[in-house]
């Protein structure tokens, strides 16, 4: 059940009320974690980023003046945190290759092996491989279901720029995973035929 966030809750948080923070956390945790997971690629990093976002949110919420929508302000904070985290970790070499693949990749590979490819998992992986500049609008558009106008407000750019980036991202996805649509289409045709027979 989503918790509604109104001005009062935000004011409570600005006053340092713990229950207010909790309400805010419950209301936004899935959105924040969702963006972080798509951006970071694995659950551990996503949890780190989401945690960082909420800690930042609780310490910086006094800076929110109410000029823009709270959602937009928060999304901007999340995107900035994700980019900061990525910048920090670029200086480090992940040891996944020693420990094995990430859980998401492993799941996708297992499913692929069992010929039960979930398109959503493969698309998730493909989105993670997009450049951050293209990845963020895609996540905000399809995971958070924001409009072009809202995405532009979060990213601080024009709607034309958002449209252009989404265009490039869509084409990149189509080039990488277009074959999946053909396969599902042919699979569907085959199953329809079998039903007819």
């Amino acid at each position, binding site marked *: 059940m989503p918790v509604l966030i109104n001005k009062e809750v935000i004011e409570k948080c600005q006053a340092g009320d713990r229950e207010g923070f*909790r309400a805010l*956390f*419950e209301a936004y*945790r*899935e*959105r924040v*974690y*969702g963006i972080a*997971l*798509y951006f970071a690629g*694995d*659950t*551990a*990093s*996503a*949890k*780190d980023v*989401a*945690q960082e976002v*909420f*800690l930042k949110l*609780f310490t910086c919420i006094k800076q929110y003046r109410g000029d823009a929508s709270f959602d937009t302000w928060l999304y901007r904070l999340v995107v900035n945190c994700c980019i900061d985290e990525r910048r920090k*970790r670029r*200086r*480090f*070499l*992940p*040891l*996944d290759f*020693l*420990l094995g693949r990430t859980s998401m990749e492993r799941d996708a590979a297992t499913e692929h092996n069992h010929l039960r490819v979930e*398109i*959503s998992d493969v*698309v*998730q992986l*493909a*989105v993670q491989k997009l450049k951050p500049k293209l990845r963020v609008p*895609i*996540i905000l*558009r*399809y*995971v*958070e279901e924001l*409009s*072009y106008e809202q995405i532009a407000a979060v990213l601080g750019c024009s709607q*034309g720029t958002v*449209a252009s980036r*989404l*265009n490039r*991202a*869509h*084409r*990149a*996805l*189509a*080039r990488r*995973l*277009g074959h*999946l*649509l053909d396969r599902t289409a042919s699979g569907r045709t085959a199953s329809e035929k079998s039903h007819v027979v």
Partner: protein
Amino acid sequence: MWSRHIRRELSAYCEGELQEELTHRLRDHIRICRRCRKQHEEVSRGVLLARHLRRPLCELTWGEIEQALLNPRQRVTPGRAYLSLRSRTLIATACLFVVIGYSLFHYFASGKNVDLDRYLTQVESSEPDLARQQIADAPPGFKDADEYAALRAAGIAQAAAEPPLVGYTLIRHRIGNVAGKEVSQLVYRGSNNSFAVFVAPHAVPFSFGKREIGSTTLDGIRCQHVSCTYTSALVFSAARFHCVLVSKSKDYKELAAIVRYFLSAHKASEGS
């Protein structure tokens, strides 16, 4: 008619984000422009794929956040294993040292071994020393230089006439200089292997540096074994001569046959 290409607006068009008038104009353009139609197909596929994205289930709990709030420096989640830039540099340096160390070790270790191939190549490319060498002073144990030279010539003649192993031929015999001393060198080559025998009077000692030398019995023949990694080196004595056999072969029967051949050849030449 819409004449401008519409690449930027294609995503918004596919998702119905454009105003109605603009949507109509774009539809008309796509109908007549092949390039934009192709791109539209591609973007439509991308949109279809992107619509499969869904929000994942959140694994973060309020308890973890509370804990992090109480202790901001400590991260609740274990995180991924990472190597810092400094650690990476250290590991790379360590790897470099290991590689350099291994190369140096290999270089020096192989340098201690008798490089028979290289030796044989050198011997083959050099002129054979068939002329009888004038020796001013006879080595101790010989009456005079002539006796020493005669024995040496007889030994070489026999070695050339009848090789110690079937399939081998004497490819070079020459008076070489080993550590400033005159030594007869006989080089045999077969189809798969080669070996060299150095023959010198007892008065001309062989030196093997710091190599370990142990006594061994080869098919009933007492001889000394010089430690070499890739080659077999055996020292054996016959009357007034002693010899060193250097071979890449580790087949002890083959080595024993060569040693026996030289021992009997020496006995025969001494007898004559």
